[in-house]
């Protein structure tokens, strides 16, 4: 549905032959597209206006760097201003106060307050070794207090015992005194959802604030929010006074323009991101990620980080060693598939890659995640150890047996075997891991911050030719390659497999990221 800004701009600047500085007319034309891109990403109208003005000031007369197209130049400028507006990196929670340190959670109905309360508490307790007490001040929504109690049990975080009939203010008082008595470091106060125009409930929240005097008052807001983001953020800030923002449902495929809107109208930092329903779905905020997302450029840093976190480094290393020796067998393949599944499957990953929106859309119909991965793993697990080690022995009768055992068809087994062969082949050629992923994971496992930054730089230099042929075809023709429905498109993502143990076929040399799919128009 969305064209990336880069694509749109290339359309405009294709006509532009002159090099040198960007003229006012060029900039105007480009800014019209920037405006559209931002609005489609749900950035609030007023914020868009201010934003494009900022970009204009920087862009007019700006020298176009050699080897960069005017389109790329503008995207870069827009990206920079976005990052700048979104604010500084990783502003952590401020816990500098004498314990117990209160944290107050506020927001609209259903935005994710209760879940986020438990996520933060869990993180503070496990990672930062603070003793946390959680209390639900939501006396209104059915089973809201019970919800926090259940989450507390799941997270191993204590919750204030529920006493029926207590008002939010009474609960806040009790939470603070219990925390003092119990020697807790942090008290998390979850509140009922309320509209930003509900004066009565805003006043209630304000009195809770006055009782607890929180160190942090976090506005929990849905990253899928539309134009209303400015109104809600402004009102919550005015009426209660927030110290930071948590954006939830970042695991969705929204463009996240609300982040820019809320940051711009409140000036308050976005501190954390909610990335799932489970209690470990909490991440620090990085402006580049959201900027890339708003511009439809993908979220590559996230991808790499996620890969680094999810992939079992030891297993990856082991597989990498086996690859080098050319002894990549079906057990290794199964391990890779498992790792891929942990990453959220193909569509999860593709959603994070720049310019992949369209291709992902085409693949959406093809149930890669559940269908193929699971079936392929089922096939492998129906084989005997000898068969896994040496797939060559798979004759017709063995295939029939495995098909029956795994509930699949012989053709699927054939496809899997072919895929394995191709991968084993690629690996033999691989040898030294070249390119970003190669460097990154080659023998070392997990990338550090400097490497991530370097990788981003590589990605910034988007090279259309880096798109693997299969994907280029898909992008151009709008059709899926043979066999992509549903089978072996999996390894097709690259021409080489660097020693990134868990990602079959992701990569290539040098991996520059996927540019916007094809040049349409």
């Amino acid at each position, binding site marked *: 549905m969305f064209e990336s800004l880069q694509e749109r701009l290339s359309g405009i600047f294709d006509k532009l032959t002159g090099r040198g500085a960007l003229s006012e007319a060029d900039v105007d034309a480009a800014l019209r597209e920037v405006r559209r891109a931002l609005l489609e990403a749900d950035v609030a*109208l007023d914020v868009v206006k201010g934003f494009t003005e900022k970009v204009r000031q920087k862009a007019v007369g700006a020298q176009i760097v050699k080897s960069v197209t005017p389109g790329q130049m503008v995207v870069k400028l827009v990206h920079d201003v976005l990052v700048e507006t979104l604010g500084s990196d990783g502003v952590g929670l401020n816990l500098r106060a004498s314990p117990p340190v209160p944290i107050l959670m506020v927001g*609209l*109905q259903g935005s994710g307050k209760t879940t986020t309360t438990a996520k933060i508490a869990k993180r503070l307790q496990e990672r930062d070794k603070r003793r946390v007490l959680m209390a639900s001040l939501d006396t209104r929504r059915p*089973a809201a207090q019970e919800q926090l109690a259940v989450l507390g049990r799941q997270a191993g975080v204590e919750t204030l015992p529920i006493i029926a009939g207590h008002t939010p203010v009474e609960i806040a008082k009790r939470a603070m005194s219990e925390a003092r008595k119990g020697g807790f470091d942090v008290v998390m106060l979850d509140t009922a959802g309320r509209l930003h125009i509900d004066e009565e409930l805003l006043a209630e929240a304000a009195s809770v604030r006055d009782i607890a005097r929180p160190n942090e008052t976090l506005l929990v807001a849905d990253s899928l929010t539309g134009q209303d983001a400015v109104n809600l953020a402004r009102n919550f800030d005015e009426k209660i006074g927030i110290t930071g923002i948590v954006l939830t449902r970042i695991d*969705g*495929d929204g463009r996240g323009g609300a982040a820019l809107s809320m940051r711009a109208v409140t000036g308050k930092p976005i501190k954390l991101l909610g990335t799932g329903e489970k209690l470990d779905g909490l991440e620090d905020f990085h402006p580049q990620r959201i900027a890339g997302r708003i511009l439809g450029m993908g979220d590559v840093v996230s991808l790499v980080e996620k890969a680094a976190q999810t992939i079992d480094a030891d297993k990856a290393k082991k597989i990498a060693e086996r690859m080098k020796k050319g002894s990549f067998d079906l057990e290794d393949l199964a391990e890779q598939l498992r790792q891929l599944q942990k990453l959220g499957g193909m569509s999860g990953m593709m959603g994070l890659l720049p310019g992949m929106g369209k291709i992902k859309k085409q693949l959406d119909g093809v149930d890669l995640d559940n269908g193929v991965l699971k079936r392929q793993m089922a096939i492998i697990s129906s084989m005997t150890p000898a068969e896994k080690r040496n797939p060559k022995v798979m004759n017709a009768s063995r295939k029939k047996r495995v098909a029956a055992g795994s509930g699949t068809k012989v053709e699927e087994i054939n496809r899997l075997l072919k895929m394995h062969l191709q991968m084993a082949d690629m690996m033999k050629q691989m040898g030294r891991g070249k390119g970003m992923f190669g460097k990154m994971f080659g023998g070392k496992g997990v990338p550090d911050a400097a490497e991530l930054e370097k990788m981003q730089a590589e990605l910034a230099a988007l090279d259309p030719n880096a798109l693997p042929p299969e994907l280029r075809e898909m992008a151009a023709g709008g059709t899926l390659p043979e066999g992509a429905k549903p089978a072996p498109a999996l390894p097709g993502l690259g021409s080489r497999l660097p020693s990134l143990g868990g990602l079959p076929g992701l990569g290539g040399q040098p991996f520059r990221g996927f540019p916007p799919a094809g040049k349409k128009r």
Partner: protein
Amino acid sequence: MSGFLKSLFRRNRDVEESPQAAAMPEAIAPEERRGWLGRLTQGLAKSSKSLTGSITTILTKRKLDQTTLGELEDALIAADLGLATTERIIKAISAGRYDREIAPEDVRKVLSEEIAKVLKPVEVPLDFRGQKPFVVLVVGVNGSGKTTTIGKLGAIAQREGLKVMFAACDTFRAAAIDQLQVWSERTGARLVSRPPGADSAGLAFDALTEARAEQADILFIDTAGRLQNKAGLMAELDKIVRVLKKVDANAPHAVLLVLDATTGQNAMAQAEAFAKTAGVTGIIMTKLDGTARGGILVAIAERFKIPVHAVGIGEQIEDLQPFDAEAFAEAIAGGGG
């Protein structure tokens, strides 16, 4: 009140309709309509940069020129209609009127009429004729208001004298079952549930079997919130639908997508994905009591033509109103009085 019930739940006249209900007019009573619009405009008035504000500035102009159109366009964008729909509507408005004098009231009228044109065809009451038990599957992303909406709908059905059952198929989210339990106590609907973590499709199967055995009139199935881009969770939803069909080939008879009015352009992708996986038959839009206008519904109506049954305007049991295309359009256009 029955007028509203009736237009929300249009039922077979010949079959078991109370004489009292039959005597009720089709349309919503003007009072109630004012009530809803009143609340919507109240919200508008409270928000600092309201549409009303921007329209008022427009009203001081006299010609439908580029500037005026630009401001109308801004108003629609700010209501979340999205660019494509906004541009189409603006084009339609300017057609034949461009640069002509236009009375201020007419600008607003024309705008709201153009929006209503898109919405009118999807203004369809929820109809549960001819099936017993009538199975309503309620789906949507996390926190959109599914469980609350089931409570509200259940209350209406219960008041109509129907035998209502709830199935707590959100076995995932903490205390989701307890939440529906409270709603079942509030409404008198019978709750079918299993311990947390139970298989939701299995529970759906049992609930429908039980609803049949007990001759329930209507069964509401609550599901866990799921983001539409999560293939695994969407597959689980697909499974619930398939399992229901094993009991009754025509079930679910209605699949309601609950959309949050504060959601921006992503609601379009939600409608598309849930329609594809679960065969959505109707939409209910919640949280219209805030300042969000829910304009994405116009884009969804235009593109997918999915019926819209009702709107949520609060957290309480009575805070559900039948969808009214004109009122919705007027609220977007900044009118309402």
